[in-house]
């Protein structure tokens, strides 16, 4: 198929007046869309009242609060780790469930924070934070429903005590550990034996 070579709208077919009107109209439409839709939706500014009228203002609202259905808990645990012993401590969290945490140890431990979604094959976990440290704190929002928690390992030669404080919307604490010989079982915050 043959095309005529042209690199713009044929000048003869468009009058000066039409181009001028089109350019000014383009500017006006842009200003109208910007003040009528973009300002309320993006910045929460509503000079024409269209944001209120069309419900666009809601788009500009920052979601600062997420309400939770489940029970709010605060817990504090003390864990003792003999040399070369490890422990895994997890909670159940629903997707989007939040938790604040802080823990400190009497000496450096190897740790990671990891999560396993419900239905994942055994041994599968996603690790979010992993280092050697004597403390860590932060906030956690569960990316999926499943078990979420810490793994600590005492690579040193002396017993280490870890104190963990958590607050948030989690449940069902679970502890798994590889105990050194003769080591006693853990108690949870209520004084009940774990597992």
């Amino acid at each position, binding site marked *: *198929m043959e*095309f005529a*070579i*042209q*690199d*713009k*709208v*044929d*000048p003869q077919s*468009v*009058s*000066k007046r*039409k*181009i*001028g009107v*089109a*350019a000014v*109209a*383009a*500017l006006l*439409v*842009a*200003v109208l*869309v*910007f003040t009528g*839709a*973009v*300002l309320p*939706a*993006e*910045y929460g500014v509503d000079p024409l009242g269209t944001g209120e009228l069309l419900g666009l203002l809601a788009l500009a609202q920052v979601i600062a609060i997420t309400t939770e259905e489940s029970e709010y808990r605060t817990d504090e645990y003390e864990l003792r780790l003999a040399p070369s012993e490890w422990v895994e401590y997890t909670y159940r969290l629903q997707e989007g469930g939040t938790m604040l945490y802080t823990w400190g140890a009497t000496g450096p431990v190897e740790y990671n924070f990891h999560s396993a979604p419900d239905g994942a094959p055994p041994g599968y976990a996603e690790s979010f934070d992993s280092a050697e440290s004597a403390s860590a704190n932060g906030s956690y929002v569960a990316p999926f429903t499943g078990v979420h928690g810490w793994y600590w390992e005492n690579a040193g030669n002396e017993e280490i005590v870890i104190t963990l404080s958590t607050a948030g919307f989690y449940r069902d604490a679970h502890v798994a550990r590889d105990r050194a010989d003769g080591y006693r079982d853990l108690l949870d915050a209520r004084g009940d034996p774990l597992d």
Partner: protein
Amino acid sequence: MRVYFPALLLLWMLFVPSVADLSAHPMDTQNAAFVQGVDGAAPAPFMYLGAKHMVTGYDHLLFLVGVIFFLYRLRDVVLYVSLFTLGHSVTLLAGVLLGLDVNAYIIDTIIGLSVCYKAFENMGGFERLLNWRPNTRHAVLVFGLFHGLGLATKLQEFTVTENGLVANILSFNLGVEFGQILALTAVLIAITYWRTRPTFERHSFVANGALMVGGFILTAQQVYGYVFYP
């Protein structure tokens, strides 16, 4: 089948992701966290970010739509796109390597105006109203330089580590070109098809008007951001 292309163009402008973000297209927070965590060369992720930036970066895309609107021969498309690529690659590399600290709002305002310029030129505005027409090739090259500065400021908003910096910028740049080819192919197919329809002659003027509206909205956003969110 009668396809009303100006309407499609407007629809596309409305529904392209993040169409009205504060800066034209910030990398989302997850990507930002990744970039900040990188230490060393990470070619594939940076290439992906570059391509994503281009495909979802409607300011660059609108400009390219304007540039290829009346280019009928593949040779011309390649020539103009090469000029644009040359321009933005030079300033992307130089900008990040020299650590040029350019205000992103000003650059993005110029990028918005580049869309208006090209639409106005496509309408025949320069010749008819001003009796003067800028050299299109020079203009595309110069605006390419500005688009590259925009890319550089976006990349520099994150603390990119010195370690593997050159490899990462080059990867980002390469990704930008892949994204550009991807987007251009789609645009070119659509426009080429449209040219075979009688509606092209009738509506190409309106389509460039719509392009100009898009350019002005981008410009207004950046000016507003510059004034109220410096």
